[in-house]
């Protein structure tokens, strides 16, 4: 007997069951490494190489990573590394925004001979493998005396973040009708004030999105801090790997705990910034 369907209720068919099962399978497959890392972080030293799901969980690893014992094991102060990462990434994002927002505006508004080539050139920084440039960079950094400094890290990380910011924000500026700024010019505002008071507030969602993305890319970068820092400016990505024991014992449980801690700041930032990520602020400016 056919039953009355409620609104929103879907008919269950063989196809929909198969689709759901496949989605679930993909979900398990993609999330399993995260789950495994969480379990690993909760295991004690004796259990760390076991593959059982049954063990007595402990938060000891997190405490160890943040304590003097962790530092003794790896010669790296993990809390310090976290702080360095934050400073490096915030610095790189700030530089990218201060330089990149006006650059994106200019790129979005004015076409001139070679402007597309210039934009592509900027993007091509992202194509080249970092390892390709790391040796010359290492030499340059040593010569300039910025090896293992935060300034050096900000400088190299903004190479990663700037193209992102410029490319994302350019499309936001292009979506914005130039007539808005033209109206401001005729209202008696200079070009700079028209940019600051009319265009800039309307791309705030774009600034939030690109800043977040840039922060995550900078945070996750491994190769640059691995080669260009030693101890003073080392970052969380490098600090995590120290628990794998360069020569000594490998602490997989401590590595997992450190990695989980290291993943927290981008996560918190993403959740905080989420509400600014709405589009459509410029709705109603010009006729559709």
């Amino acid at each position, binding site marked *: 007997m056919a039953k009355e369907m409620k609104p929103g209720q879907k008919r269950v068919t063989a196809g929909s069951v198969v689709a759901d099962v496949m989605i679930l399978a993909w979900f398990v497959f993609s999330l399993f490494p995260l789950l495994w890392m969480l379990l690993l972080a909760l295991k004690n030293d004796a259990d760390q190489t076991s593959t059982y799901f049954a063990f007595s969980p402990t938060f000891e690893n997190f405490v160890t990573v943040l304590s003097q014992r962790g530092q003794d094991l790896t010669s790296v102060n993990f809390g310090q590394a976290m702080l360095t990462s934050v400073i490096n990434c915030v610095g790189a994002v700030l530089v990218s925004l201060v330089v990149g927002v006006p650059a994106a505006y200019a790129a979005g508004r004015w076409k001139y001979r070679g402007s597309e080539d210039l934009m592509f050139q900027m993007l091509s920084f992202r194509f080249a493998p970092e390892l390709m440039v790391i040796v010359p960079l290492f030499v340059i950094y040593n010569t300039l005396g910025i090896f293992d400094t935060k300034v050096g890290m900000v400088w190299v990380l903004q190479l990663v973040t700037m193209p992102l910011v410029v490319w994302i924000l350019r499309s936001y500026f292009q979506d914005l009708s130039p007539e808005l700024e*033209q*109206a401001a010019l005729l*209202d008696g505002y200079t070009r700079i004030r028209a940019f600051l008071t009319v265009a800039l507030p309307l791309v705030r969602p774009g600034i939030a999105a690109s800043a977040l993305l840039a922060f995550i890319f900078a945070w996750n970068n491994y190769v640059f801090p691995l080669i260009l820092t030693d101890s003073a400016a080392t970052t969380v990505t490098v600090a995590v790997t120290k628990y794998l024991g360069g020569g000594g014992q490998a602490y997989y449980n401590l590595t997992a705990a450190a990695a989980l801690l290291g993943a927290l700041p981008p996560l918190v930032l993403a959740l905080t910034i989420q509400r600014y990520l709405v589009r459509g602020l410029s709705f*109603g*400016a*010009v006729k559709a």
Partner: protein
Amino acid sequence: MATVELLGLSKAYGDVEAVADLELSIGDGEFFVVLGPSGAGKTTTLKSVAGLVEVDRGDVVIAGRSMRGVEPYHRNVAMAFESYALYPQKTVFENLASPLRSGRTGRYSASDQQQRIDAVTTTLGINHLLKRFPRELSNGQRQRVALGRVLVRPADVYLLDEPLSHLDAKLRAQMRAELKQLGEMSNTTSLYVTHDYQEALALGDRIAVLRHGRLVQVGTPHEIWRTPVDSFVAKALGQPEINIVDAEVADGRLRAAGGAIDLPAPQHLDLAGGRARLGFRPRDLGLVRAGATAPAGDVVLRGRVGLAERLGRLMEFSVDVGGTDVIVVADSDAGAREGDVVDLHVPLTDVHVFAAGPAEEDTLRLGGAAVREPAQERS
């Protein structure tokens, strides 16, 4: 208040000439309409005056001062954009206050601002919308706010880019009437761009017709309507479009449609070459039953009604005259039905004679079929 002169204004976008060698002279306080189809260069012309477009050649002179190298914010012009260009993050009040707060249109205290905005919003009937954001307004309301942002400030020139284009027909007619009554408008030199011939005829002190970025004709609405310079201008004004038929000149007569149209060739016109084109506006033709007496001196065309459409009190007839379709708009009292044989009549003064030319190409108007052009009604 200021005069505006365009001296040989030219602007090309790539290979496309948006405006070419445009020469216009607009008087102090004049309401000047630029009429043309889309792509004729109307908006480019306005933006050149505003300084928003860098012109390739030529100059804009406002109040006797060359605007070469003068930034938009130093020109003291106000513009209503076709797209409204309202600041989406600001309320209607803040949008209207924006030109008053820049410091370049004069100094206004908070109460001065309030007073000016109140005056404008009352005129435009939008004072209940002050706290709203542009996204919360209908298109008609947005258009009024855009117009308000122009009127709220003193300016040498008002530039209005299709300010009524996105309103529905009823509101458009209403706003057209209101615009004409606005005191600010009648006192300030205004450049008004439109593709709507009715707006142009109703509002303009003078009209300039543009085509492909070139000036075709400048004149009062009466001049443009009565003596269009060519068939392009004649077709641009009037709905339905003017009827244009090819004619031959022989034995001192102008004949068209296989002899169904036959009138004396005007002696004062140069009809060398033996060919011409005749134009009649649908509203200038009268329609009577075949054989009924037409007014003395009128040209009479006999034909058969192919299609009759009621427009209200008026009817639009498509009449087959000797194999050529002629559109007539006549009083429905004429009582003609589809299939009836009728006589169309038109005074010689309302018959336009154009030069002959290849099909689909516009040709110059040579003159009227009457010996004299109709008297100029100057307003």
